[in-house]
C-alpha cells in the first residue's frame, strides 16, 4: 500500500485555509485572497457550461462538467478544446439551435471521444499550437463500456489528452439502463427490482480508474462534486502534466437514482463518507494519495435517500445485500486506507 497523504495538509495555502475554519471547505472564503480561492468562487470563472441547458434539476453532471472545465480553462489560460461523447451531457447542452458551451467543443459519437481527442491533440501539435490542450469527456456508459476500446488505445499511446468520465452509474440519457459502472443491487430499467435478486447483480461491474492505473499513465484520480477543492486541485494538477490522464468524477443523477434534486451534493458526499466511492490519486501505475473520510458513515445512510435502492428497505426490513454493500465499502476503506486509526477532529 503506497504512502497515504492527507492532501489537505500538504501545502502551506491549505494549512492556512484550515485555520480559517468556515472557508476550508466552502466554495469561497471572503477572508483569503481571491487567488487562494477556488475557481468557482471567482466572478471571472469561464462558465464553460452556462445557463439555459436542458439538464434535469439538480444534475450532478452539469455541475461536475462546469467545475472541471472552468478549472481547466483557468489552468490553460482559456486555451482548451473539449471533445464530448454522446450522452446526457452532450444532449442537454447542444440541442439545435442552442448550445450552452462557451469553449470550442465537439461531439462525434458515443464510443470515440478518446480517439477524436487524440486526433485533435495531434492536429494541435502539428500546427505548433501545443499550448492548446484537449479534454475528452463522457459519461460512464460512453467510457467504461462502449468507449472503452478507444480509451484504452489513448492510454496505451499516452496521447496528451485528459479524459474525464462523469460517473452517474448508468445510461441515464436513454432512460436509466445499467452500465458496467452501475453498483450492485441498484435498480435500473435493465436490472429491475423484481425477482429473486432485484436490482443489479453482485459479481459484475468494472472500476475503470483501477484499469487506468494499470495502464501506467501519468495521472489517474477519482473525485466527486461534493468536494470542490479536491476536484479543482486534481484538474489543475492534471493539466500541468503532458500525456494520457484520467479523471473519474462521481456525479449523482437525481432522476436516475430516484433522489431529491437538492440531494445531489449530499449524496456524493455520502458516497465518499461511506467508502462507497474511494477517492484517490495514482501516477504511473501506483496509488499516490487518498482523500481520507472525515466522518465515516454506514452505507445505509447513503442508500436510503435513493429510490434505486428502495427495494433493499421494504417494509422496514433491511435486505441482507445491504450488509454485502457494507462489506464492499469496508473493503474499499481498507484497501485505500480511507479512515485514520485515530479519530479526526
Amino acid at each position, binding site marked *: 500500500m503506497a504512502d497515504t497523504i492527507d492532501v489537505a495538509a500538504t501545502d502551506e495555502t491549505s494549512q492556512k485555509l484550515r485555520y480559517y475554519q468556515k472557508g476550508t471547505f466552502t466554495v469561497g472564503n471572503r477572508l483569503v485572497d481571491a487567488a487562494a480561492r477556488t475557481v468557482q468562487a471567482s466572478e471571472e470563472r469561464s462558465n464553460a457550461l452556462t445557463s439555459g441547458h436542458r439538464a434535469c434539476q439538480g444534475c450532478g453532471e452539469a455541475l461536475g462538467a462546469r467545475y472541471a472545465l472552468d478549472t481547466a480553462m483557468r489552468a490553460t489560460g*482559456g*486555451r*482548451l*478544446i473539449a*471533445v*464530448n461523447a454522446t450522452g446526457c451531457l*452532450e*444532449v442537454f*447542452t*447542444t*440541442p*439545435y*439551435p442552442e*448550445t450552452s*458551451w*462557451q*469553449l*470550442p*467543443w*465537439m*461531439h*462525434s*459519437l*458515443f*464510443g*470515440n471521444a478518446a*480517439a*477524436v*481527442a*487524440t*486526433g*485533435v*491533440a*495531434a*492536429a*494541435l*501539435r*502539428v*500546427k505548433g499550437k501545443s499550448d*492548446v490542450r484537449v479534454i475528452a469527456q463522457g459519461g460512464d456508459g460512453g467510457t467504461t463500456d462502449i468507449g472503452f*476500446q*478507444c480509451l*484504452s*488505445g489513448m492510454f*496505451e*499511446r499516452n496521447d496528451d489528452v485528459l479524459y474525464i468520465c462523469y460517473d452517474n452509474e448508468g445510461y441515464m440519457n436513454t432512460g436509466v439502463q445499467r452500465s458496467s459502472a452501475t453498483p450492485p443491487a441498484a435498480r435500473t430499467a435493465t436490472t429491475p427490482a423484481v425477482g429473486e435478486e432485484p436490482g443489479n447483480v453482485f459479481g459484475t461491474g468494472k472500476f475503470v480508474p483501477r484499469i487506468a492505473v494499470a495502464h501506467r499513465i501519468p495521472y489517474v484520480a477519482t473525485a466527486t462534486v461534493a468536494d470542490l477543492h479536491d476536484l479543482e486541485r486534481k484538474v489543475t494538477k492534471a493539466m500541468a502534466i503532458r500525456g494520457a490522464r484520467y479523471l473519474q468524477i462521481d456525479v449523482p443523477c437525481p432522476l436516475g437514482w430516484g433522489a431529491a434534486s437538492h440531494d445531489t451534493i449530499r449524496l456524493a458526499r455520502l458516497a465518499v463518507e461511506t467508502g462507497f466511492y474511494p477517492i484517490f490519486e495514482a501516477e504511473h501505475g501506483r496509488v499516490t494519495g487518498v482523500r481520507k473520510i472525515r466522518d465515516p458513515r454506514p452505507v445505509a445512510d447513503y442508500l436510503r435517500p435513493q429510490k434505486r435502492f428502495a427495494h433493499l428497505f421494504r417494509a422496514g426490513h433491511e435486505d441482507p445485500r445491504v450488509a454485502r454493500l457494507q462489506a464492499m465499502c469496508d473493503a474499499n476503506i481498507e484497501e485505500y486506507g480511507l479512515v485514520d486509526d485515530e479519530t479526526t477532529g
Partner: protein
Amino acid sequence: MLKQIEGSKAMAEGIAACRPQVICAYPITPQTHIVEGLGELVKDGHLQGCEYINVESEFAALSVAIGASAAGVRAYTATASQGLLFMMEAVYNAAGLGLPIVMTLGNRAIGAPINIWNDHSDAMSVRDAGWLQLFAETNQEAVDLHIQAFRIAEELSMPVMVNVDGFILTHAVERVDIPSQADVDAYLPPFEPMQVLDPDEPASIGAMVGPEAFMEVKFLAHYKQTQALRLITKNAGEFRARFGRDSGGLIRSYRTQDAETIVIAMGSVCGTIKDTIDEMREEGFPIGLVTIVSYRPFPSAALRNALAGAKDVVVVEKAISVGMGGPLAIDVDEALRNLPHAPQLHSVVAGLGGRPILKASLHRIFREAVVQPWEGTQFLDLNVRVVGREIHRSAKTRRSGPTAEALLRHLAAEERDGTEKGRH
C-alpha cells in the same frame, strides 16, 4: 517521375506529396502497404509536419481523423472491408459533420465468410453515407485520384473515399508517374477549414438536430453532392492542365460513338473489358464501354448522354445487394428510367470475393446479353453444379450447417471426382 513501383507504394508517395498532417493507421489486408509506406515516409523525414498515429482499431482510425480534421489539419486514413464496417458509425459521422477527410478503400469482400480478395461490396455498403466515392481504374489513376480527392474534399468540405481494387491495384507493380512535390503544391493549396475548433473563435460542433431541421441538413448534404458533380469535372480538367493526363472526372467513354451495346463498369475490371471490346470490335460487334469514376455523386446526366444511342446496356459489377440485385445496375437503371428510348439493361455480377474475370467469359456474356438476354441478375461463371447440390442438400435437412463450408466440401468433392467444374 516515372517509377516501376508497387501500387500501394505509389499511392503512398502521391498521398505524401499532398502534405497530410495527421495519418492514422490500422492494418487490414489489402491496404496495409499504403499506410506502411506512409509511415516510413514520415519516420525517415520525407514527409514532414505530419503525425503518424498507430491506432487500436479502424473505428479509432477514422475517429482520430475526425478529430484532427475538426481541429483544422489535413487528415488521412485507409481501410477495407471489415475495417470499413467497424468504422461505419464514424463514416456517417464524418460526412454528417462535413469534414474533408480523404480515405483509401482497398476494395475487398466483406464476410462472413471471411475473404481477403477484391470486390466492391465494401464500397457499396457505405454508398448512402454521404462520402464522395471515386474508383480508380489503374495504378496511375489511383495516385492521381488521391491528389484530386484532397482538393475536392476541402473545397466542398466533404469526405472523399478513393476506391482501389485490392491486390489488383494495390499489389501490382506497374509503371507509374509520381507527381512532383512542386506540381502537387501548385495544384493543392493548404487546407482552409470551413469550421474549426479554435479557442479564439469557440463554437459547438456536432449538435443534436431534431425533426425541425434534420431534413434540411440532409437536403443540404445531398445538394452538396450535386455541386460536387461540377467540381469533379472542373478539378479533373485542371489536373489535366497541370499534370498532362486524363485522370478522374465523372465518367470515361471508350469506343461508344457508334456502339449499340455499351458496357458499364468501375475500377480495374475496365482494363479487361476494354481488351474484350477491342477484340469484339475486330469482329464487327458495335460495343463500347463507359467507365464510371465518380460513383458518388452518381453521374446520372453524364451517363444519359453517354448512353443515348445504345440499345443494350450491360452493367458488370463486383457487388451484390443480397435480395435485390447488383447495386450499380440498380443505380444505372434509375438514371435511364425516363429516357424516351431507354436501352435494355442487363445486370452482371462478377468477380465476387476475388474470382478472376476472364475475357472469354466477358466475350460470352456480352453476346448473350444481346442475343439471349436474361431476367434479373446474372452471376458470371457460377458453378451451377455446386450450387445446385447445396440447394438440394439444405432443402433436405433442417440443420444443414454453414453454407460456405458446405460449398467448399462440394468443390473438393468435385475435384476428387475429377468432374470438370461446371461452368455456365
